[in-house]
């Protein structure tokens, strides 16, 4: 009894000790240092490590999430205005191109596209903008660079930029922008947009060829881009440069808001090209050098990446223009205040959704998406079908942010296929029938938890050319029933199928059942239910669907060779212009013929003609009329089943301010503001350690060990 009493008293002491410990220290489950509890730091996560941070190479959303904050192209999107509006960033104004003919004579703004030989964009940047602190700029008193002539031994031992003692900066000049345009042609960088841009920027292809030749001739030598001229990019003066575009390409202006056209200082290339640097991952692709509001202070993409406020940032203020909804949402509360608000942003690698979600609920991440695992915990639907937060989320002062992505998912018909392809009336009716049968309203409800809008055409909401409501419905698949958009009945689809030569799903001539083939990369249990759903849709027409599962490589191969029949594909907008979606259906872009992005290999001469006209037009009623005509053609021809525009749902805590989804801008971190005091209080409140399980564990262990000890002693005594 005495012993049991002693054990109990020890357990009691343990409980008291633990309680005192819990009361005295920081939250036990806090993954960050306790000293940062009230710091003006934003905490976020990434699930996939970025591959490239060089602005000539980074393209994926998980890459521009970083490069967008570090590099500054001349233009940016207005944070609040919709439709998306370009405004100057480092440029003094949004440039308006002037046009010249083949003889070099300047043309009027309304000159026909056929007469335009070149469009010239002149961009003047603000003077006085400086780069982030970086050793590439560091100079001694005599003006010599500290770190431009190092050998491998001098680099030895340095694995981070912070290992270099000296740093410096310099003013941004127009030549840095021209230098970066040349970098797009550098074969050693493999810029993803070189192919596209070489079709548009004068002389870029020739520069690429020259650089490739030089690279092959001297594979170990660095390419000094300043030695290679580029006809299409010229420095006018210290702060002004010009870009020459072949013909007319109005969409080029949008590229000027992407990191591809951000400045890169030549010093950075010289610095990183030194022996031993690349072996330590000291490359521009890993350690960016920009003029933006933040610089990358820590780059460990296996664990975390940290952005810190650039001490030399030129400054910018929070936008003052916004609509009434923005004002009501508190998005204008910081109007005119200097940016950025947050001192530091910590991005932690979080590969799995469960820990990400749990840490968000604990307050250790400021915002989160909603995975399918946690959807029911976070979202419920009102009687009207509108998504809203559950009570538990509202109780934590969590906010729901929804937006329709500038993207589309579609099921494509291979127009080269003898069964479903071609522009004949019978094939058209077959595709229309299948389009009606695929009930994407149901798909969105079952598989996306309502996170999508049935698509009526290739242009998603928010872009010029999209028409909302019944006026914008696809009349070949939907109908207007008392002001509601309703999918046409399956009877209509059956009638179309019969007219196409397949009454009741059988070939009218041979009697053979109609069998279609769907190529997909999807696999696994989740995909199986989706694929079963697809089969079920065609069952309604008595048409069989055979699913041909394949891996990414084989799928791409089939698409390139035109061996697929039906396939699923998606597209995210590069920029907010209908051209960026219609070009997916433009004949000369056919994948089989030209390796372009027209995966359906659709080629309608009338559509092509209208596309060529539309792409060069300014937004306005005339352009809308052309777009409407194009929409009517693709809806009638139905080379795609317009599936859905995805809707993204995001959550933020109550201490996060100035959150407005902007699908085009990638530099929105500077607008984000947090209330660290409120966050610290909530974290403390939500994460108090629960100690009884520890006491219970010791008690259970004691209860389990005690009989064993007793038995052991008995045994030992017996032996003795």
């Amino acid at each position, binding site marked *: 009894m005495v012993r049991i009493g002693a054990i109990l008293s020890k357990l009691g002491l343990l409980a008291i000790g633990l309680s005192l410990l819990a009361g005295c220290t920081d939250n036990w489950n806090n993954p960050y240092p306790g000293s940062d509890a009230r710091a003006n730091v934003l905490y976020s996560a990434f699930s996939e490590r970025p591959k490239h941070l060089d602005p000539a190479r980074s393209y994926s959303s998980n890459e521009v999430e970083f490069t967008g904050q570090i590099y500054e192209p001349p233009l940016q999107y207005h944070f609040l205005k919709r439709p998306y509006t370009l405004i100057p960033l480092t440029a003094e104004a949004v440039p308006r191109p002037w046009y010249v003919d083949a003889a070099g004579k300047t043309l009027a703004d309304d000159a026909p596209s056929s007469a335009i030989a070149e469009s010239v964009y002149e961009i003047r940047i603000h003077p006085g903008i400086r780069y982030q602190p970086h050793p590439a700029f560091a100079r001694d008193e005599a003006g010599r660079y500290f770190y431009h002539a190092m050998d491998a031994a001098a680099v030895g031992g340095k694995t981070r930029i912070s290992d270099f003692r000296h740093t410096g900066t310099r003013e941004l000049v127009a030549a840095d922008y021209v230098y970066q345009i040349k970098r797009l042609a550098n074969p050693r960088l493999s810029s*993803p947009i070189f192919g596209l841009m070489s079709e548009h920027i004068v002389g870029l292809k020739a520069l690429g060829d020259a650089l490739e030749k030089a690279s092959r001739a001297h594979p170990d030598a660095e390419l000094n881009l300043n030695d290679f001229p580029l006809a299409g990019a010229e420095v006018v003066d210290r702060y002004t440069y010009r870009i020459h575009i072949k013909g007319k390409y109005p969409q080029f202006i949008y590229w000027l808001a992407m990191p591809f056209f951000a400045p890169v200082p030549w010093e950075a290339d010289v610095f990183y090209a030194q022996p031993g640097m690349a072996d330590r991952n000291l490359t521009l692709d890993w350690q960016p050098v920009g003029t933006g509001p933040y610089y990358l202070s820590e780059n460990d993409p296996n664990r975390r990446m940290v952005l810190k406020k650039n001490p030399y940032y030129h400054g910018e203020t929070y936008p003052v223009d916004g609509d009434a909804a923005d004002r009501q949402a508190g998005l204008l509360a910081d109007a005119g205040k200097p940016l950025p608000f947050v001192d530091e942003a910590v991005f932690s690698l979080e590969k799995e959704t469960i820990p990400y979600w749990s840490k968000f609920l604990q307050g250790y991440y400021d915002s989160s998406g909603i995975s399918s695992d946690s959807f029911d915990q976070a979202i419920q639907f009102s009687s009207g079908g509108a998504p809203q937060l559950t009570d538990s989320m509202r109780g934590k002062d969590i906010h729901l942010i929804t937006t329709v992505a500038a993207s589309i998912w579609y099921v494509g018909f291979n127009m080269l296929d003898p069964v479903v392809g071609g522009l004949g009336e019978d094939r058209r009716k077959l595709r229309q029938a299948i389009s009606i049968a695929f009930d994407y309203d149901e798909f969105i409800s079952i598989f996306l938890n309502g996170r999508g809008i049935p698509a009526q055409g290739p242009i998603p909401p928010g872009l010029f050319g999209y028409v909302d409501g019944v006026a914008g419905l696809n009349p070949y698949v939907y109908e207007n029933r008392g002001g509601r958009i309703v999918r046409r009945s399956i009877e209509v689809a059956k009638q179309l199928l019969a007219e196409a030569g397949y009454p009741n799903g059988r070939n009218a001539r041979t009697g053979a059942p109609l069998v279609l083939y769907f190529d997909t990369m999807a696999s696994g249990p989740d995909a199986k239910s989706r694929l079963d759903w697809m089969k079920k849709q065609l069952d309604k027409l008595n048409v069989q669907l055979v699913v041909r599962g394949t891996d990414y*490589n084989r799928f791409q191969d089939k698409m390139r060779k035109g061996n697929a029949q039906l396939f699923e594909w998606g597209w995210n907008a590069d920029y907010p212009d209908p051209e960026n979606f219609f070009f997916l259906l433009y004949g000369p872009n056919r994948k089989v013929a030209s390796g372009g992005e027209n995966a359906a290999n659709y080629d309608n001469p009338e559509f092509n003609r209208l596309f060529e006209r539309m792409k060069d037009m300014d937004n306005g009623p005339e352009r809308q009329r052309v777009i409407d005509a194009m929409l009517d053609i693709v809806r009638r021809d139905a080379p795609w089943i317009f599936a859905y525009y995805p809707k993204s749902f995001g959550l933020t805590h109550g201490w996060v301010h100035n959150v407005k989804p902007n699908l085009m801008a990638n530099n929105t971190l500077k607008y984000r503001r947090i209330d660290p005091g409120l966050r610290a209080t909530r974290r403390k409140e939500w994460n108090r350690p629960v100690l009884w399980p520890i006491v219970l564990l010791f008690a259970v262990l004691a209860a389990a060990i005690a009989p064993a000890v007793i038995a052991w002693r008995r045994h030992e005594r017996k032996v003795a």
Partner: protein
Amino acid sequence: MLAYILRRLLYAIPILIGVNLLTFALFFVVNTPDDMARLQLGAKHVTPEAIARWKVEHGYDKPLLLNAQATGSARFTDTIFFRHSASMFAFKFGKGDDGRDIANEIRTRMGPSLAIALPVFVIGLMANITFALLMVFFRSTYLDLWGVVLCVVLMSISGLFYIIAGQYFIAKLWNLLPISGYAGGIDGFKFILLPVLVSVAAGLGSGARWYRTIFLEEIGKDYVRTARAKGLSEARVLFRHVLKNGMIPILTGAVVVLPLLFMGSLITESFFGIPGLGSYTIDAIQAQDFAVVRAMVFLGSFLYIAGLILTDISYSWVDPRVRLQ
């Protein structure tokens, strides 16, 4: 013994060449250099010219195994296989297709992997042996019976369940430890506790059962009876005699995995946000990064061979009857 080790190391060379060749063949059966280029260049605006340039820049524009255009030894050396594989035998792994230095990456990731794997190995081994010896001590009693039942239950549960349950109860519900994350040095202690605890618990059932079988086999032998006849206590019999003689099969399993601890654990590291080597190979396979895949397979094979040699050496150390010749 030195001659034996040298001989074993020489045997390793053809094995490693074979492993390299097999990895190469398997990888390029599934992926072509064009596929690799396409994946690296992204899904948009990829032109055939861009693919051709990428292949030239990364050395994938050569024939795979035999260059029919070349003459002499260049027929074999001017190929993707030779150019990407020969340097590995000097442990020069080169750069991944994303441009990162592979050796640097391995060095950086090895520490976090070891920070988890080493405590799991040591604590797990001790816990398994202790639990097994206890069951042997109480053999044929209710404690042994329930111990075995517990082992079977622990074995039957998926490893993923331990992780999710551990994260849910310990980190989320009771707020005792961070749910995931990592930090170097002493700050890393709180991040390591939960994955170590979970991994030890996940391995306890199978480990303890296996060791129990080994010890039960030993305990019936003559030398144990002799030890008892000498009047030694049961604890002394178990820990001094049975444990020592049971070490050979234990070493077989334990020492061979010792070098592989560097390679980390995919699931544990992924769920706990440990920046180790566990996911490096898988990520590389998904990214079709052949440079990383071949380097990691080579390293894994080398470490496995090293583990087998170490096991042989440890036999002679534990059991004087074993001689390496």
